[in-house]
């Protein structure tokens, strides 16, 4: 009965409300503004105030305490005194076909002296003449009076040898490819790199800061898969795709594996997927091909289709340094952008003179020399395969082979024992050394390198010693 409001109630309600409004009209101004301010303050507090972060301001004393307490790690971690790098064999005399260690001469199957140019009298003579004309050092980078006429001659000769427009030389083999890659490939670009490339290429790729797509070693299908994936991405964003450069980085003959890259198919794919090919022919220069011109000659591919061939003067040529050849358009860029070229002292003239003479000998002896090295490599390969207990990795015509113990016995310890045993029998071989941060650390192996002047008897002797070593190690 009390729920319904009577007319009287409504009237009194209205009157109260009217009185409220009247009181507002009569209230002092400061009262009203204060009320409005309170209402606004409540609204702000509820809806808009963000919690204030407690500021971590340290006092001077606290900072000093932090500085006093901080202990850095020691400069270097403790070092294992038995590490092989600290216990290397010290050589005396010329390191040619034979090497002298502790007064004893042994056959050398460990250094990259493929064409036996180390100790060649013609080369040494030319180097001596260069010292008598130019002194030893070049005393400056290429831009500041470090360019000597003999450098220009060597660059021309190398370009002519490869039938390319221009050549450029570097003063260190490692820095050659490691400076070349970052000169062309920048942050936005894509590099398709074989997983088995050697360390200098890996560092070049890292220094470029580009996107890297590794494909399985010598696996064309894997490369095609990556290329197709990239094509799909390109179709989604064609505008961006027009600004991304693509490069394929491979080696002619892989130092870590001894096998040759499948170049013809890669050149075909180049024109389909529009990438540029940079090939590192450090080992294949002077060892593969009828006249030693590398894998392009081996596969009979037009060198104009390869954008850049880089190589080292430290292997077949028997000097120091590196070089690159290609079209002028590509090579000339390095003269201003390759860090290892612009900011480093140039190659000492005597080393350039040695390289020119080595190139002369290569051109004079030509086909007979390279047919010899390829046939000897094949013979060595056959002989090694016949020793039960070893597995041999590498192409049969490659003068660089990796030898491993078969049947899961392959450990560094056993391989080192084999090497030590061989040394007592006057054969110098070496376990291939790598740093632990390689992209794909190869299995432990002995890296055997054939010198073109090894006779058949000497190769036979090598195999005999390896056989004996195997017996000793596995017994």
């Amino acid at each position, binding site marked *: 009965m009390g729920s319904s409001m009577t007319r009287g109630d409504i009237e009194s309600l209205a009157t109260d409300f009217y009185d409220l409004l009247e009181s507002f009209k009569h209230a002092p101004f400061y009262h009203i503004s204060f009320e409005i301010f309170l209402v606004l303050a409540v609204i702000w507090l509820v809806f808009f105030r963000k919690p204030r972060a407690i500021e971590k301001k340290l006092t001077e004393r606290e900072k000093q305490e932090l500085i006093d307490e901080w202990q*850095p790690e020691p400069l270097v971690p403790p070092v294992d005194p038995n590490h092989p790098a600290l216990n290397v064999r010290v*050589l005396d005399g010329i390191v040619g076909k034979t090497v002298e260690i502790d007064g004893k001469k042994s056959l050398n199957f460990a250094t990259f002296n493929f064409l036996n140019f180390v100790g060649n009298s013609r080369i040494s003579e030319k180097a001596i003449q260069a010292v008598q004309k130019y002194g030893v050092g070049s005393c400056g980078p290429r831009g*500041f009076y470090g360019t000597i006429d003999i450098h220009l001659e060597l660059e021309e000769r190398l370009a002519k040898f490869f039938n390319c427009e221009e050549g450029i030389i570097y003063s260190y*083999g490692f820095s050659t490819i490691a400076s070349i890659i970052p000169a062309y490939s920048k942050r936005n670009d894509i590099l398709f790199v074989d997983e088995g490339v050697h360390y200098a290429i890996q560092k070049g790729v890292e220094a470029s800061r580009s996107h890297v797509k590794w494909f399985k070693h010598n696996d064309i299908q894997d490369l095609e898969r990556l290329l197709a994936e990239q094509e799909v991405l390109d179709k989604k964003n064609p505008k961006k795709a027009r600004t991304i450069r693509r490069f394929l980085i491979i080696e002619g003959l892989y130092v870590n594996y001894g096998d040759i890259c499948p170049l013809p198919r890669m050149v075909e794919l180049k024109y389909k997927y529009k990438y540029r090919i940079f090939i590192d022919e450090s080992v294949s220069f002077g060892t593969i091909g009828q006249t030693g011109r590398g894998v392009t000659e081996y596969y009979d591919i037009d060198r104009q289709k390869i954008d850049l061939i880089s190589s080292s003067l430290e292997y077949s040529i028997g000097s120091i340094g590196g070089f690159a050849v290609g079209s002028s358009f590509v090579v000339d860029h390095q003269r201003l952008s390759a860090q290892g070229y612009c900011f480093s002292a140039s190659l*000492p003239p005597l080393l350039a003179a040695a390289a020119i003479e080595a190139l002369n000998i290569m051109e004079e002896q030509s086909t007979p020399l390279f047919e010899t090295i390829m046939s000897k490599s094949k013979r060595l390969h056959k002989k090694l395969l016949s020793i039960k207990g070893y597995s041999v990795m590498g192409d049969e015509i490659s003068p660089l082979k990796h030898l491993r113990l078969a049947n899961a016995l392959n450990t560094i310890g056993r391989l080192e024992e084999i090497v030590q045993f061989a040394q007592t029998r006057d054969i110098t071989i070496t376990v291939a050394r790598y*740093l632990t941060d390689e992209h794909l650390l190869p299995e432990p192996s002995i890296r055997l390198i054939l010198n073109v002047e090894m006779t058949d008897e000497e190769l036979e002797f090598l195999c005999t010693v390896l056989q004996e070593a195997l017996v000793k190690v596995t017994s």
Partner: protein
Amino acid sequence: MTGTLFSKADKDIEINKNNDCNDLQCEEFEETPLYAAVLTYLGYAILCLFGWLRDFLRQSNIEKKRGAVDPNASLGFVPLYQSYESFYTRNMYTRVRDIFNRPIASVPGAQFELTERMSDDYNWTYRYTGKTISAVNFGSYNYLGFAERTGQCATDAINGLKSYAVSSCGTRSEIGTQRYHIELEQLLANFLGVESSIVFGMGFATNALNLPAIASKGDLILSDEMNHVSLIIGMRISGASYQTFAHNDMNDLEAKLHAAIVHGHPRTNRPWKKIFIVVEGVYSMEGSICRLPQLIELKKKYKAYLYMDEAHSIGAMGKNGRGIVDYFNVDVNDVDILMGTFTKSFGSAGGYIAGRKSLIDHIRIHSHANTYASSMSAPIVQQIISSLRLLSSPEGEKRICQLADNTRYFRRKLVDMGFIVYGNKYSPVVPMLLYLPARVTRFNREMLRRGIAVVTVGFPATKLLEARVRFCLSAAHTRPMLDAALAAIDEVGTDIRLRYSSRHVHRRLKDL
């Protein structure tokens, strides 16, 4: 007034205050005069304008396109170079290309022969006339005059060639370590007064390939802003974080050290594992010397490690030629990692790192160069061994004194004539400021016409405003050679108005 003009001046006054007039650290970096700055910017602007005009003419086929063309251009490949990269090469660098990369035909000693080359098409191509130009060499790094083709060092190098051939074709960690490598390392360690050292075939690679072996992720590297490219590449590859501090500014360095330890890594706030300070002994573009005593103080206070690159200072500084440590007479064991090169003062090639045996052993195991790069060539090593032995003999002392003498004389005369010369009073690297790009090229060509070969550098090797000529003095420079050079500088400097200094009176050479 632009901000840069004043900040240089302020820093200058502060440096002088810091010195307590310590003579060994007396350096001057006079501020750029306003009119030179304005004219330089104007010069570059005009060059850009003409560059755009010429590019436009080339695009519309009014002018013939020179330079090489991409063989893959029409096949749908992405262009190999950015268009702005090659803008600079086509329109600015090519105009003045003849002052760089000059080939020589003799030993790079104090007097040498340049091969003459002519261009009929404004430096796009060259032809060699077959003649040579004789000139005094102020460009090669030959501080102690060991770039010689006769004499004890050359004879020893030739004997080295006969005994050991050119190369060993092997790496140091496998089959490639020869007895002379060990001899050199011991000799060098004794010379520097440290426990042990290790040598490499290339100076650039010594920094780039060994910093990653020493520093790694989780470390902090504080490097001077003027450090060489090889140090920066090494720092990048190492994976460590790096920050730069203002050139030779110990207050900035201290502030950064302080902040680094207190706050740790900027994002995670984790403490740093190690902190390195990387400096050079003598900076090759500025001519300044690092403040070693203050650096050692700071490093001890904040427990950081000091890496000093003595490429230009080993052999050239100090009364015994032992570098900056010798120059300031401090304890060599206070510098944790000493690095240097053999190219400059020893007339050879290659680099080294020296320090405690534990450090060197660690580098032997982890260095990229030790494991993958060919070992040093015999005649190169022999040249270094011979020059090191010579340095410790009276002949060597004579050369060191001669270099110091030449430095003092040359710098004094240049400053008295009213040119702006940067750097430390005793550094054999003498940069003289030219500012305008046109004056830089004109100076270079005019000096060559008078038989003096100099090295001029501009942007991007230096800041845009501060193009300069850099004289590298040598112990092989005789007083008549220096006088001939000063006379030529006086003449050319008057001709093209290079006397910018407002601190020193402008005078002619004959009035000194």
